[in-house]
């Protein structure tokens, strides 16, 4: 198990190196320099700026010095927010985005698993159809549509909840968390329904029933562990999706997190910020994929034995 984890971790290194390399050269091949958007700037100023940001050296030299910095966790200064480093901006946005993603995941897991398990216990009845139709609607209602509609209803018409911000007014975290979490709740509901249906038809569940265990005990103690493996395996990709979703949700609710910085950096053509954040977010996503794979293997004794046997 540990050897397998270590192996997977080592495999992540070339992937990360590729991310850094591709992003770096993509950004550097962008037409127009980073300062070309400014109005007529005297050539001396541009030269001074280029010197300041190391842009007067050949690209390969810049690449290796950047690579060296990144390995030490230094993403350099931001082009547009003068005087601030990319690291500072990431440090400012990360806690907010992490909190948003955490609440959204909480919404997704609680709603999704309860709906999916409820549906799987009584398949092809109303208790199955209702949550599953709800899940289909959740999947077809993208966050950039759901968010504004929630704001319109609960923020403007009913005036129950604040329409924007994060931690400024009581209750302003509710709408963004629901907006971001709903789509994943829908996927998780479908996954946990499928997983539970498969597990509930297994022999060991029949054995548990034959022993006369209560239905509740069978579900909670015996079926959930196996039935939720697909959900656990989905957590890694879901996390990547949450980060991308935070771009939209943070823009809608004006939350100063990583996602909003990223979209703004994209509009401002803030190349160093985009470069640094791409590498940072990619690393996060790759690590989370790894973690959710590990968790899924740990939960599934069959897979665990396969890996340990293969050594």
């Amino acid at each position, binding site marked *: 198990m540990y050897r397998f984890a270590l192996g997977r971790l080592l495999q*992540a290194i*070339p*992937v990360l190196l*590729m*991310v850094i390399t*591709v*992003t770096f050269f*993509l*950004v550097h*091949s*962008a*037409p127009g320099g980073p300062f070309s958007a400014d109005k007529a700037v005297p050539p001396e100023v541009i030269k001074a700026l280029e010197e300041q940001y190391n842009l007067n050296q050949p690209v390969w030299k810049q690449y290796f010095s950047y690579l060296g910095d990144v390995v030490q966790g230094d993403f350099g200064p931001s082009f547009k927010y003068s005087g601030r480093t990319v690291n500072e901006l990431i440090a400012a946005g990360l806690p907010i985005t992490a909190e948003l993603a955490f609440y959204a995941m909480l919404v997704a897991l609680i709603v999704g698993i309860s709906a999916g398990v409820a549906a799987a216990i009584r398949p092809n009845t109303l208790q199955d159809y209702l949550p599953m139709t709800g899940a*289909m*609607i959740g*999947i*077809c*209602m*993208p966050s*950039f*549509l759901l968010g*504004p*509609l929630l*704001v*319109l209803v609960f923020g*403007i018409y009913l005036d129950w909840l604040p329409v924007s911000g994060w931690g400024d007014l009581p209750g302003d975290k509710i709408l963004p968390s629901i907006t971001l979490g709903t789509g994943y709740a829908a996927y998780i509901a479908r996954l946990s329904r499928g997983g539970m249906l498969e597990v509930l038809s297994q022999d060991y569940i029949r054995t548990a029933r034959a022993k006369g265990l209560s239905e509740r005990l069978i579900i909670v103690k015996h079926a959930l562990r196996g039935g939720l493996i697909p959900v656990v395996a989905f957590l890694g990709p879901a996390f*990547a*999706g949450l*980060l*991308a979703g935070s*771009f*939209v949700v943070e*823009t*809608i609710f004006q939350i100063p997190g990583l996602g909003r910085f*990223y*979209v703004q950096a*994209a*509009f401002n*053509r803030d190349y160093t910020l*985009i470069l640094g954040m*791409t590498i940072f*977010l*990619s690393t996060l*996503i*790759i690590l989370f*994929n790894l973690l959710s794979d590990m968790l899924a293997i740990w939960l599934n004794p069959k897979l665990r034995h396969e890996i340990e046997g293969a050594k």
Partner: protein
Amino acid sequence: MSNLSTESFVIQEDQGSSLWQDAWIKLSKNRLALFGLAVLVSLIVISLLTPLIAPYGYEEQNLDMGATAPSLQHWLGTDIFGRDMLTRIMYGGRVSLMVGFIATAVALVIGILWGAIAGFYGGRLDAIMMRIVDVLYALPFMIFIILLMVVFGRNILLLFLAIGAVEWLTMARIVRSQVMSLRNQEFVEAAHSLGLSQWTIIRRHLIPNTLGPVIVYTTLTIPSVMLLEAFLSFLGLGIQPPESSWGLLINYGVETMEEFPWLLIFPGIALSLTLFALNFLGDGLRDALDPRTSKD
């Protein structure tokens, strides 16, 4: 010889058609899937005929009128420039559907070729090709598409390519596993012994036999591509004005939703309904075409 080869092909096609008939019978019992199919067909027809049947011209505006609620003249109301919303949604739908189909087609071509070659040749080539797919899977593509749009400008052609380049990976995996299970079967051996070239075998005998799962996955890829386009357009990084798409219309709708909610609600309904229909159709096709996942 050529006689023999056409004969064997005809027999195979007979078996194939019965599979399709089976699938159609199963599909026609699934009302939700039929509803999805009906929505999809009418959307395609409406999109093709839009320039003829749209109630107003695409660029027609009436600044004095401004935004008005739905009325008999303008069924879905007008936007702040006095442009007819129904017309805007019809033209936007053309773009959204076109992105959905073209980007999916890009993904299909790359995915099928990649998967078929890897599955057919096997061995080291397969290992290398699938390793590349694994590595690409690990990349966070959403971020990369945004990066591409920033670096190279917001170009619709690039959008097709970028989205297609993301979506082919799963297709390649599906086709590869199909081809691997097919390549040792007798009809492939027969084709070999007839002296057909490897490329002909892949093209005429292997790829057509992977169509079932490919069609299912294609139907499910189109809505996810349309969603991706709408997502990017909503952020202002996808389709650019004067072109329009549902994502862009939703973006505009959000800006004025407090006073003119119908500008948000109608494009939202159009997008959600389409995604709904395509997902149901995809689920129905999966039940109909894939015997392993059929219910009970």
